[in-house]
């Protein structure tokens, strides 16, 4: 049974169908990718999974349990964590406290302060931010802010991690480091579902890729299959041509 699956997932905003009748699934332990041109509905799909928005129709299941009607904090406690396209760190706290929030509240059962602190420290160490625990988040570079977001998500002890355009704005070296980090996370037993524009990452670490366009799923397969898929090439090349003219 896939750890995450959706059937007929649809989201309408006013008259616009942001996500239209999408079926998808992510297998346990996979690194799955979600790509598509801007406005394809990728982040909306993530928002539907994490319940930031309610579904218009369809059903999403996590470990067999329906997520419809649940609130984001409940879904987090079930084991789904995420990062955000525009970084949403707590600007009024230093790095350590940011991650501590995840450690305290992300678990379904009450956790002691000592255990929470340990979780937070471990998460920060995992992403390589142990040296900057007292820094205010506004003083961090973009890369480090993304690291903290990942650490915060990891501190909630997820089984599934949704990464929303984690590589955006990173240079080549940073992208490689990020790819390593993602693989390390998967090796810990956490399933990864990532939205990405940076093809190097998609090709490099994803085992399966889904393509969305205008809210509909138009292709699915291994990175190799996707890259050679005629329709996919169409929409991306089409984008480029339109952009060029």
């Amino acid at each position, binding site marked *: 049974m896939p750890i995450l699956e959706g059937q007929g997932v649809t989201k309408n905003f006013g008259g616009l169908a942001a996500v239209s009748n999408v079926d998808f699934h992510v297998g346990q332990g996979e690194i799955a990718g979600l790509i598509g041109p801007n406005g394809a509905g990728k982040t909306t799909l993530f928002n539907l999974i994490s319940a930031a928005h309610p579904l218009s129709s369809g059903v999403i299941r996590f470990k067999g349990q329906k997520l419809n009607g649940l609130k984001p904090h409940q879904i987090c406690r079930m084991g789904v964590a995420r990062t955000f396209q525009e970084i*949403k760190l707590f600007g009024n706290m230093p790095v350590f406290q940011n991650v501590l929030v995840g450690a305290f509240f992300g678990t379904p059962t009450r956790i002691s302060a000592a255990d929470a602190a340990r979780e937070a420290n471990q998460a920060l160490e995992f992403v390589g931010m142990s040296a900057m625990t007292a820094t205010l988040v506004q003083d961090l570079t973009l890369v480090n802010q993304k690291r903290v977001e990942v650490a915060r998500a990891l501190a909630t002890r997820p089984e599934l991690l949704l990464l929303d355009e984690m590589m955006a704005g990173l240079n080549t070296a940073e992208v490689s480091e990020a790819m390593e980090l993602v693989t390390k996370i998967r090796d810990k037993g956490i399933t990864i579902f990532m939205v990405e524009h940076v093809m190097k990452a998609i090709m490099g670490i994803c085992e399966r890729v889904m393509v969305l366009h205008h809210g509909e799923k138009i292709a699915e397969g291994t990175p190799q299959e996707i890259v050679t898929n005629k329709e996919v090439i169409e929409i991306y090349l089409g984008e480029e041509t339109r952009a060029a003219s």
Partner: protein
Amino acid sequence: MDITVFKSKKLVVVGLVLLILIWLATSPLYASSSNIRLLSTILMYIILAVSWAMFSGPTGYMSLAPAAFFGVGIYTAAFLYARGSPLLPLPAVIVAACAISFVIALLVGLVTLRLKGIYFAIFSFGLIVLLGLIVQYWENQIIGRRGQHVVAEGTETVFYVMLAILVATLLVAYFLRRSRWGMAMLSIGGNEEAATHMGVNTTMVKVFTFAISATFMGAVGAIMATRWIYVDPSTAFNPMYSFMPVLMAVFGGMGQLYGPVLGAAVFAYLERILRREFPAYYMIVFGVILIIVVLFLPGGLVGLIPKLRDRLRGVIAKLRKGGQTEQHANT
């Protein structure tokens, strides 16, 4: 080394606080009646400012409702502790005021805090007038008389009850701030959407904290009624009692517990002096001060201290460097 310094600093602070409390507790023995009354007023404002900051500080949700819950407390005393026919003893009246304020805040919070912040702001602002109108309607239709008389309590009784409420408020505010609940509130203020995705039940945290803060406002209203003796809807539900705590907490700074305490002490005293001399002018000045603080000093006095400390360090470092270069130049 760091831990022992930290611990000794904490002991000093605790010792200081205890000293102040002892001084306050014994003040009726040597202070004049009018000074005790002034102290009671200052304590009242501190309680209002601290309990307002308890919720609005970390979450960033600006509540304008303190006057509403203060009025609830006043009228709880008016109905349960009426002159000539009190229904309950004073401690029970205070507790009743706490309970009623808590429930009303809970209901208001449940309806408005699950929506965008603006609805909460509108409703918390309107609550003052709404409750005043309801009480006024009740008095007109059911009782037939405007205004109620409350059992009069002596200056000292009022003072000691106020002191007790203050201690309770400060304790709750302190432990709330340091607990994981306080951290949840901060996360809501930091980024509410992220907070909810990290497992924080934001609605519940907001609603309960709001209700707890209202409890103290109600308590202080109830005891104040026994000093005012006569109360009516317009004096009980007066927007001033929302304005002053907000001004005090914002001026003092909400980053630390003692910020609102400081702000309350300053402005309570200022109000006492200025109201006699310049009745309408002082409110204009206070309003302008609020605007200036919001624009230029959003962290309040408390927020100023780290900046001043850094400046001071910078100055000292420059002086040191200057001394050193002089030395080198002389050799």
